[in-house]
């Protein structure tokens, strides 16, 4: 029992690498307590060798995502009371990424695919030029705006079974970024980008499962972004601007 009067939480945490196992700890329950706090408690008080990753603790850096009771989530902004089943919590590393140790995954494949999707701005101007006037009410600006606040947490990537099944698939976050750039009127790399997302593991591999959209903590909609890319690339292909 704890100061809050609630029974302790029974927390199962993944320990080890890919071939690890869950181990269970008892953590005092508090009124103000996120899943990250629970994990921190275990490291600070019960098992100093527990590894996990976090930085900002306010949902901005996207480095604390884990699998909590079977669902990928940002842990710093997930209050325990919203996810605990009774007094039980199961916390594992994100799926679809290699495990480094315990709760920390290797995010490199995620970011490599981000690059493969050409999720990077290609400048058409320099610092010596004036800033491009872009009216906020234009359609393209609004489309780009809708998807731009991604924190690259990898939650959508972990939630998508197409990522799991198709190792070439670039995944929702990378494609969502490509879509925001496709709507960026300042960008000079449009054809190359469309080409990149129209090939093998590109946007067409998505089956609109929408798990990405359902789980995105920033409430972005990668499904809609990917659909947009499917349209753009199909048109570009039919016009002969890109190849299969």
């Amino acid at each position, binding site marked *: 029992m704890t100061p809050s009067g609630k029974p302790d939480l029974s927390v199962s945490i993944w320990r080890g690498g890919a071939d690890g196992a869950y181990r269970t700890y008892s953590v005092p329950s508090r009124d103000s307590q996120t899943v990250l706090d629970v994990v921190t408690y275990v490291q600070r008080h019960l098992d100093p060798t527990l590894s996990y990753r976090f930085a900002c603790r306010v949902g901005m850096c996207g480095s604390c995502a884990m699998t909590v009771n079977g669902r990928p989530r940002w842990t710093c902004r997930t209050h325990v009371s919203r996810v605990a089943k009774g007094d039980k919590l199961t916390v594992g590393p994100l799926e679809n990424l290699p495990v480094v140790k315990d709760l920390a995954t290797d995010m490199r494949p995620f970011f490599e695919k981000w690059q493969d999707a050409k999720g990077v701005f290609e400048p058409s101007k320099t*610092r*010596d030029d004036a800033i*491009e006037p872009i009216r906020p009410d234009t359609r393209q600006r609004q489309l780009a705006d809708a998807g731009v606040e991604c924190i690259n947490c990898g939650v959508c990537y972990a939630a998508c079974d197409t990522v799991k099944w198709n190792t070439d698939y670039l995944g929702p976050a990378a494609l969502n970024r490509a879509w925001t750039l496709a709507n960026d009127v300042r960008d000079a790399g449009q054809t190359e980008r469309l080409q990149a997302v129209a090939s093998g593991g590109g946007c067409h591999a998505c089956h609109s499962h929408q798990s990405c959209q359902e789980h995105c903590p920033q409430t972005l909609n990668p499904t809609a972004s990917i659909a947009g890319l499917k349209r753009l690339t199909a048109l570009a292909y039919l016009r002969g601007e890109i190849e299969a």
Partner: protein
Amino acid sequence: MLERLQTDILILGSGGAGLFAALHAHAAAPDLSITLATKGLLGKCGCTRMVQGGYNVALNPGDSIERHFMDTIEGGKWLPDQDLAWTLVTQAVVRVRELENEVGCFFDRNPDGTLHGKAFAGQTFDRTVHKGDLTGIEIINRLMEQVWKRPGVAKLEEHRALALIPARDGASVSGVLMIDVRTGGLRFVEAKAVLMATGGGPTMYRYHTPSGDKSMDGLSMALRAGLKLRDMEMVQFHPTGLLAGPDTRMTGTVLEEGLRGAGGYLLDGGMRRFMADYDPKLERATRDVVSRSIYAEMKAGRTTPNGGVYIQMSHLGPKDVAKKFKGMVDRCRDCGFDLAGGLVEVVPTAHYFMGGVQCRPDTSTEWPGLFVAGEDASGMHGANRLGGNGVANSTVFGGIAGDVMPGWIAAHPGRRAPDEDVLAAEIARAQHPFGKTPGNVHVLRERLMDLMWDEVGVVRDAAGIARGLAGLDALEAELLETGVADGDRAFNLTWHDWLNLRSLVETSRVIALAAGRRENSRGAHFRSDFPEPGDLDTSTYTVVRQGAAGLAITEEPVQFTIVRPGQSLLDVKEAAE
């Protein structure tokens, strides 16, 4: 045991300063080998990413560089190094154009398509460029994409820098010792030029806003290297940090300034609106005044259950609040608080560190080959940093460092082998806790945070500072006897907690010393025993340096190279027109 790597340019940190340095260095000299080492994942650690407010820049035709400069100097209570501040405000203009045009940032626009500038406290013009209230995410995401895109920049993610290793001459830098966090192995990276951009981070206070990876490592490394640290007493407190109780990382995180600006009330534990007792501007008073007022209420015991005060927004209409401050309201809700309709407990929280390594406008330091930028550097802000000048500072000077380092290398060719004795000593130092009986690092950190909060915090006096210094000595002695179990060193957070704590204790001592030395109250530094700001014309700044005989502290006169107290560049400009 020790793996040795070589590179031309080594950059520590992947905040605004580190990433910009990498891009500029790569552009200036694509043939040089550039290595960027950072404590967390590339771009996903540090505070630049957490910038909410935005980026100060005089781009609007109605604004001027001179006005931005004067705001910076007056905000800094005449302590800034004026050449650094001038570089900051002039280069910010270039940097924002670069961020938009070359890096791809997507800043908010006015209806006519021009950049939107919002109001930020302490400024005479609405010049803060932003992307909603997630400006830092936009800046860092775009920067890190550009850095990933350049395979020429080698990335050492989750590498913690431990020590600056001097060359055999003892007076220039040879390279940096670091831990590969994922394996626990040690690496020495020898470099011709090193940029320190680890972002300060006053996380030694009970309540603090910066990200968990920041623990003043850079400044403790600089201290041990014998470099001059300036303005170390200047810790900026943000008045409204979330107070969520003990054992939660939510506590201390910032509730944005705009809440007070929009008309939010601060109430004491007895639900009384207290700001009228302190300042006629009430809740809209400046950061330092509001922080001290809340602190006074806390000292007087008029607190909420967790020991802070309340912020109330509901009188502005919960629906409107939820709309206007969506990000903030959502964040509070995720953590179990109703900001729009209820009361949320708040407390002042350590936010930014104005002090740091003394440097020149080209980011060079006393040590040939060592450069510094961002929150690790000092002098741009003086006694107080304007909201919006932090990210301007890191991106401006990071870029300058990137421009300058290749030229420096060309002018100073050849490698500088490390002083092997220092290297060996630093290796031993890093592994020190493995030789001791494992103990409870966490308890010690809690003690440090209370000690600094109570004795060297928002309001200071000589007696408290003395207690603080004594407490730090005791704490350090205990820390050195507290071990960490030596089993698996891979991703061993507890080992890193220990190392963080050591950096924090060392730099805390310097803060306390400098705070004791400044016998007046300026900006972020407030002495209840010396509440007056003192004569502006004879302003001095503190400099601390660690020598063989321990810490030495001096005061240096501020050079008014551009304007003197009582003058304004705006008058000069208007007279000329």
